[in-house]
Structures are given as structure tokens and as C-alpha cells.
């Protein structure tokens, strides 16, 4: 029984849908694992599009200049089913984004983590600026 359970747990762990595995692969081709980055900026626009959404963020450099970054996130479709709308994350929301920079040198990155000023991770556990997403 123990052996069976162990097999089950191991096997269950590798059951990733084919789509997800492919997605991992392509991201590593788009963004550089050797260029991790942490950005602090304010949200200009969250493009709630597919197959991946995009966060437009204005980042203030140490020298006072600003630069405009484009950060890749996930499909918004399940969040929409959970009550998230285009009004959930207001323009100007301060975000700390940990991720990896684009391979082609552009001001683009994939966002591994989107963290709000209070330390919570965006959308997780219903966290969004201003409280829980609108319930339907």
C-alpha cells in the first residue's frame, strides 16, 4: 500500500497537461534565465488579453528617470471567472515585480511574482488593491 501510494504521488506529480509543459519551454526561449530582475513601478495599464496578459509598468530609475516596461503575466480568463475585472487593479498601483528579462534586450520581462505594497501577491487569496475582487 505504501509503495502504491509512493508511486501514485510521484506519478501524480509529473502529470502536467501538455499545454503547460510546452508553455514552460517557450518562456525560457523568450526570457533569459540568466537575467533575473526585480522592478518597482506603477501600473499604467493591465492588458487583459490572451494567451498571456501584459502589465505596462512605469519604473523609476535611481537617477530619477522613468522607463516603460512590459511584463508578461497569465491568461486573465480564470481571474475573470473569479470576479476580477478591468477595474480590479487601479491605474497607479505600485507593484514590485520579480522576473526575468527578455532575451532580445527590450524593456520586457516575464513576471514570476507580482507583489503589492502590503506584501501580498497579486490576486492570490483574493488580494487586490482595495480588497477582494468584485463578486458576481
Amino acid at each position, binding site marked *: 500500500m505504501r509503495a502504491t501510494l509512493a508511486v501514485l504521488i510521484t506519478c501524480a506529480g509529473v502529470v502536467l497537461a501538455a499545454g503547460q509543459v510546452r508553455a514552460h519551454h517557450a518562456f525560457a526561449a523568450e526570457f533569459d534565465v540568466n537575467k533575473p530582475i526585480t522592478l518597482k513601478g506603477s501600473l499604467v495599464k493591465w492588458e*487583459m488579453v490572451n494567451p498571456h496578459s501584459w502589465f505596462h509598468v512605469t519604473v523609476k530609475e535611481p537617477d530619477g528617470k522613468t522607463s516603460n516596461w512590459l511584463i508578461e503575466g497569465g491568461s*486573465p480568463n480564470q481571474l475573470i471567472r473569479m470576479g476580477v*475585472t*478591468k477595474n480590479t487593479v487601479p491605474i497607479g498601483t505600485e507593484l514590485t515585480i520579480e522576473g526575468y528579462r527578455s532575451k532580445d534586450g527590450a524593456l520586457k520581462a516575464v513576471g514570476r511574482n507580482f507583489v503589492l505594497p502590503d506584501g501580498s501577491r497579486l490576486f492570490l487569496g483574493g488580494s487586490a488593491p482595495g480588497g477582494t475582487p468584485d463578486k458576481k
Partner: protein
Amino acid sequence: MPNRSFIRLTLAACAAALVAGMTLAQAQAPGYRAPRAPDGKANLNGIWQAMNTAHWDIEAHSAAPGPVLELGAAGAIPAGLGVVEGGPLPYRPEALARRNENRANRLKLDPEVKCYLPGVPRATYMPFPFQIIQSQKHVMLVYEYAGAVRTVYMTDHVEAPADSWMGWSNGRWEGDTLVVDTRGFNDLSWFDRAGNFHSDALHVVERFTPRSADTLNYEVTVEDPKVFTRPWKMSMPLYRRVEPNAQILEFRCVEFVEELLYGHLKKQSGK
């Protein structure tokens, strides 16, 4: 002897009745009552298609050479009487300039060339059929072009959660007319190949009314205060595809445009 104000009032009433009658006649051929769907509503189920040149240009236009020289007459633009009611589109001046710029650069700028979703109402009059699948909670509009699809919510109306190409549609019945009220558009689709465009403030109200066993009247009110100085209307008949095996086929055009969009990023051999 009736006094002047009585005559004036009567004439006004007659005029109003005449206008009302004419408007009604546009919507529905007098005396036609469509068969019922099983739930008692007018039955709009079927495969429909527009038969005009609105997809080239929704305004009145002459025949003209097309944008691709090598296609010759096969790619030339047929004439059209126009589907927009009441003359040229009421563009704001800066918007008209942008429309003309769109038109001058249509091969580069027209979203149709890139196989992007066509938006509304362009999807209706693309030269491809679409199918209406009618149920009580949802009316589905399924377009052959690019496999575009719209869900018309007949109950539980909510606002668009986010912007999209085909918008967010709330529907209701007014008699035998299906009224579809759509907002929540992005600003990326066009109305035709002639560069006519809209902003993300676009609001479209479509009315589908049965006019005979095999035709619908399709009337559209378009409102977009960022682009136009006032709302405007278009209308056209839609014709049923009556072949016994008529069906929506695949026009999965993404593949057809990949070389166009990404060819310049291909690895060059020898490098």
C-alpha cells in the same frame, strides 16, 4: 369649420403616423410573422450571410482598382450604394484624418489582413456566412471568418469585465426583434477595408428582425463619441443559406498570415 390649430394638430398627427408606419415597414415586411422557436420566441436559427460590398466600404463608393496590383480585376473593388444611412460618416475632424490615413495604408493597417478578429458589426457583413444558435439563456453568433464567435447573454446582464475584439453582448427581445447591445470593445478592429474605425468607447446596438422566411433585416446603431459627432445607423438584409447541407466551415486564417507577420524574423540560412 375646423380652426387652424386643429388642422395643424391633425396634420402633425398624420405626419407622425406616416413616419412611424414607414419606420415599421423598414423593419418588417407588413404581415410577415416568423415561425416560432420552441420557446415561443421568433425563430432566428439558421445560417445567414450578407450580400453586398459593405466589407470593402460601408459608405457609398465607386468601383476602383484594388490595393494589390498582381490580383488585377480579381482583387478590384466593386461599387456599393452604401449601407450607412444618411450620407457620409459623421467623423470628428481629427478622426476623419485618421480614417483617411488608414485607407492610404490599408495593407499595413487593416486588421483583416492580419487575420485578426473582425469586431462588430464588420463580422456580420464579411463575405462569409455566420450561424445563429438560439437558446433561452444564450444566443450564439458563430462566424465562419476566423472562427469568430459572440455570446449574447439573454439573462443575467452584466457589464463587460474587460475589453475584447468582439465586445460583450447583452440581448433582449422586442417582439420578434432580437436586440443585441454590445460594449466593451477594444479599439483595434475596423468597420471595413476602407479604414473606417472606432475607439474603445464604441457602443453598438443591433436589431435582427425576420422579414421573410429566408431573410432578416439587420439594423445597427453605432455610437462612439471619441470618433463621431453623433450616432449613426446602417442597415442591410441578411440572406439565409438554403443549401440542404449548408454549414459553417473552417477559415482558420492564422496560418495564412504567419509568413506575412513573422517572415522577417526567420533565421536566414547560412548565418
